[in-house]
Each structure stands twice: as C-alpha cells, then as structure tokens.
C-alpha cells in the first residue's frame, strides 16, 4: 500500500469523502473532529412500543481514536485487576467488566457529566468513564487512602459524585430504585438531565425493579433503565432464570430498545435516543446485548456453565475493541503499529497507576468511625 505523508496544515481533507486516500500523521487523527465518517451499527435496533432510531451514525477520526483508547484502558485495567487479585492485593469480591467496555464508553459519549449513572458491583469501568482515574480505582481496590472511597468501599463501592456517578452497589437490583430516585431529583430540580440505572439480566427479575419502574412511569421520570444483558446471572443462563429473556420488553407499558452492546456506536445512538425520549415521555428500557469474558467474579472460573468455545467465539466475532480497530484501520486513521503503540502506552499508564496506588497508605484507624453520623456525633 503506498503511503502519502502530508502535513495536515497544508492539505485540507476532501470535502465529503472518507480519509482513506490520504495517509495522515497519527496526531492529527486524534484531533480530527471535522472529517465525517458514516458507520452502520452491526444490527438494527429492535423496538418495543417505540420506533427505533436509525442504524447509521456519523463519527469522526477523533471520536474513533477516543473510543479505542478509552476501551483499551478499561480492558487493561480489568486484566491488571485480575493479576492483582491473584496476588492477593485485592481482597473479597472483584467483578470484572472486560468484554462490556462498549456500554460504558458508548453511554458516556452520548451524555454529560450532569446526567447520572448508577450501577451494580461491576463498576470499575463505569467509574473510569465518569472521569475517575486509574489511581483512584487501583488504590480503592487495594484498600488505600488514595482510593475513590478512601479505601472504605472496595471493588463494589466506587463513587464519583462530581462526575454524576452514584456507585457501586452490592445488593442485586437495589440500584434501580435508587436510580429512579435520582431521576426524580432531576425532574424536581427542573434540570434537563437524565439518569441511567444499570442492572444485569439476573437482576432483571427483581421485584423492586418493577416497583420502581411503575413509579417512574407514573410520574414521567427521566429514568433510563439499562439492562446489561451478558446472558448469565452468576452461573445461571438467562433462559433458566427468565420466562421472558426479552428484557427490553419486560417494561410492558414502558417502551424499550434492544441494542448490540458490543457495538459502541449502537450504544451511543441508543443512549442519545433514550435521553431525548425520557426528557419528554418518561422512562424507557435499553437492553444491551453484551458479554463478559471473565466469570461472574474472581472466584468463578466462568467455564462451568458456558463453553470455552462460546467465550472465544464472542471474542473473535464481537469484541468491541477489535470492531473499532477494524474501523480505524479500514479508514486509514491510524496504522496497526500505531494502535499497538497506543496499547503499549495504556499498559504503561496502568502499570504506573498500580505502582502509585501501592505507595498509598491504608486509611487511618480513625476512619473506622467517620461518615456514620452527622459530624461523627456519638460514635463510640
């Protein structure tokens, strides 16, 4: 393939066409917010009581590169957490998100930090998406002062209030009523913001979900219930847990959309669509068809209830990062080597954050008693 190097300041891109004929230096690609690239989602959306959005979406080289880096960082963080857990630097429960990155990244691309996100315990990547740093994440996982919850929360209890992230919850499904409450507050304050309440296919059968949904629908709250359907509730496959695993339809009177959760553009489009919808019409359900490569948690190998073929099949056919890599390469936005270099950089970033986190001390003993009562009143 012949490569033509041109300085981006001398040559403007061809008006409406893709950048495929011009070979751009990498740095300009990451800044290129102007070149329009049209992509199509892998599959069309399926609607329940609603006309789905179109499957063609416009993007830019900058956005593509950002998606790649963000997802690569999340992927690397989770894999590093796996090793840290095995070296016993992380204790207790640790639920990893690798495979599901497109949901976190696509959602973030469609919203602002004034919109809220609340999720369950598979929360490390959502935290990162909301502006959390790798240091805060690793330090929290290792129970150190520099952690986002000062070491007091652990893996399942990450928060970032100034980024609109309300945790980080251990009890299955409990975050959904809380999310509807956040939406209530947003409506009450007359903000034009919305809340995304995430839950899994296992939690989708929880009664409190339906109680909260009923109220959200009754009061037209700007609540978007997002079912991250990775097809297994711990070790139980969806068809063994739900009479109707069409989670986007489970809202009955509440409209829903089924989305390919491994396609970051589909996720972005759906979230954008959902935000506009709920601000006018009350709640909607988004079902993200996604997949986790790891087991339910670090104590689950993840291979007793699903085949290794299935796992590697998804990795080959649907991996969210690979999809973006192919798009970037096919549009000549960057070379294979450049992308590999980015991944190396990300790996370094992660390693540095881990070393820094290891330097952070454990919380002061006095922290045992803080944050219980107002101004630590009365704790003995």
């Amino acid at each position, binding site marked *: 393939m012949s490569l033509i190097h041109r300085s981006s300041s001398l040559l403007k891109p061809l008006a409406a066409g893709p950048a495929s004929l011009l070979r751009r230096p990498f740095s300009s690609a990451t800044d290129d917010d102007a070149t329009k690239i049209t992509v199509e989602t892998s599959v069309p959306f399926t609607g329940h009581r609603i006309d789905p959005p179109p499957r063609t979406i416009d993007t830019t080289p900058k956005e593509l590169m950002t998606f790649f880096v963000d997802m690569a960082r999340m992927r690397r963080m989770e894999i590093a957490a796996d090793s840290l857990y095995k070296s016993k630097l992380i*204790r*207790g*429960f640790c639920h990893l998100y690798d495979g599901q990155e497109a949901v976190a990244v696509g959602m973030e691309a469609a919203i602002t930090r004034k919109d809220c996100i609340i999720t369950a315990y598979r929360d490390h990547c959502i935290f990162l998406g909301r502006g959390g740093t790798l240091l805060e994440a690793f330090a*929290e996982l290792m*129970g*150190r002062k520099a952690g986002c*919850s000062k*070491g*007091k*929360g*652990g*893996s*399942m*209890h990450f928060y970032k209030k100034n980024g609109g992230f309300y945790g980080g*919850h*251990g*009890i*299955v*499904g409990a975050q959904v009523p809380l999310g509807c409450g956040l939406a209530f507050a947003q409506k009450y304050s007359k903000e034009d913001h919305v809340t995304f309440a995430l839950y899994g296919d*296992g*939690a989708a*059968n*929880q*009664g*409190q979900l339906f109680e909260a949904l009923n109220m959200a629908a009754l009061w037209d709250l700007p609540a978007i219930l997002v079912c991250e359907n990775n097809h297994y*509730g*711990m*070790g*139980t496959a969806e068809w*063994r*847990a*739900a009479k109707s695993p069409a989670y986007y339809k489970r809202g009955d009177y509440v409209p829903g959309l089924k989305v390919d959760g491994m396609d970051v553009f589909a996720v972005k489009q759906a979230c954008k669509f959902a935000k506009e919808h709920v601000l006018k019409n009350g709640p909607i359900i988004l079902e993200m068809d996604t997949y986790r490569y790891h087991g339910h948690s670090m104590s689950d190998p993840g291979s*007793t*209830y699903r085949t290794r073929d299935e796992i590697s099949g998804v990795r080959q056919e649907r991996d969210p990062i690979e999809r973006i890599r192919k798009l970037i390469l096919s549009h000549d936005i960057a070379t294979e080597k450049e992308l590999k270099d980015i991944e190396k950089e990300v790996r370094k970033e992660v390693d540095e954050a881990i070393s820094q986190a290891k330097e952070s001390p*454990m*919380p002061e*003993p006095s*922290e*045992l*008693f803080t944050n*219980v009562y107002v101004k630590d009143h009365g*704790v*003995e």
Partner: protein
Amino acid sequence: MLGVTRHIVAGRGFAASMTVLDALNSALDEEMSADPKVSLMGEEVGEYQGAYKISKGLLDKYGPDRVCDTPINEAMDHIINSAAKSNYMSAGMISVPVVFRGPNGAAAGVGAQHSRLCYINDGGPERRDADELPCMAVSFKSLTWGKATAEALDSSFCLPIGKAKIEHEGKDVTITAFSKMAGYALEAAEILEKDGISAEVINLRSIRPLDRTTINTYVRKTNRLVSVEEGFAQHGVGAEICASVGEESFEYLDAPVESISGADVPTPYAPNIERMAFPQVEDIVRATKRACYR
C-alpha cells in the same frame, strides 16, 4: 465448625476430618437421601453446585425435580412473616418444615453490604429436626473452609435446637460465643490459661431459642461472664445474655458482665480498619482479664 480439628481414626482405619463445606454438603446429602420429600431450592444450588459449592453433586444425584435453581428473589419478609409465624397464627394447623440455609457474618474484604445480614439461628452442619417449624441455619462465610468436628461426621449426629455446648470447661470466668467467635474464644482461653486464668467457653449454637439455662448455670459456677459476638452491641445477642444473667443470676456475679461486639459501623473494606471492626482474639483476652480484675 470451629478452628479446632480433631482427627479420629474411625472404624475402617481412615482419619476422619472434613471441612465445614464438606460437612454441610454431606448433611444435605444425608437428609435428602433419608427422606424423598426433602428438596433443595435456591440461587445457584443446582448447576453451579452452590454459590460456595455447598450443594456440590446434589443435582446429579437427586435430579432437577428435587434440586431447583431459582431466579433471584427477595425472601426476608416471607421468612419473618410467612414462614416463622404461620404455625402460630393457624394454631398449629399450618406447618412450614423449611430450613433456610445461608452464609452469614463477616468474610474478609467483602465490604459493607455483604458483611452483616440478620441471623436467627446458628447451627452446624448437623441434622436438624425441622418437622413442623422452620429454622434458619446460617454458617459463617469465613468458616466454610474451616474444619468440622469429628462428631459431626457421624451420619446420625443430630444437633438439638436450643442447646448450647460447653466447648471447654473452666473455673474462673465463662465466655459465651457462637460460630467464628467461638473459635476465637477457645484461642483466647488457651492464652489465658498461660496467664493463670481458667476460662470456660460456651458455644451458643442456637441463638433463638437461646439456651439461658446453660448460660446461667455456668455463670453461677464461675461468677464472671464475657459475651463475644461479631454483630452490633445494641440489641445484640450479648445484650440479651446480659439481661438474662442480670435477671436470673445477679447475686452470683463477682464482676460486671463484659460484652464484646463488632464496631457500630458499616464494615469497611481496607484490611486494617476491617480488622478493627470485629472482635479479635486479643480483644477477648483483654476483656476476660478485665472481668477477672487483672
């Protein structure tokens, strides 16, 4: 169930000891084998072999009709209001022969929402006569991989409800505890022995009904009491024991009752403060010495 292992060479010449996990598994197996009307139902009990592998092998052995994987559901209201109260409300007509078994208590590093649930009855892996009335048997998460006592290995071993067990007799002070804390209390007793204090350890086993008779009988003998529990002090087991001993055996007490419990805070994650949130062996030793005016 405790940190104590007793190896016994059983009849056929093999050393008998097993983990609590295996003991629980064999108890379930024995019960299901003995009575075809006994079934097992819960999240991940079947194909997953149990969240902590406690029901390993049972699905294969007894089939999907008797071992049922359920979707998630919230049971607490029904445990309290339907299961526990039906026999009473119907004047004996409706029986609820159910054992609610689950992991409880503080495990290491699981944070605030997974460290304290309410527990009604603490029992071991032994058989339980839940003929008509439900009971809730909880085993402490962190003990699942500990060693079960040898007696429990006998298939006809049956634990009576409402009876505490004297794990270790002593002269100077009585320590009451249950589950993991019973193990800690035994360790503390060993340390205290070296310091010339003969501490008795009572393993409560049954929280409700509480074996007040045994507790009072032994406190009347030693005249000093230390209660240990992982749970919160307020409205806790120790509080009830203090009340009982205060009512029944006040004149026999030579010192105020010492009650050690978990810190009145949600469980933190960081290991240093997590450790501070729960009683440790050295806390039991200190409190026992205080009770002995040492």
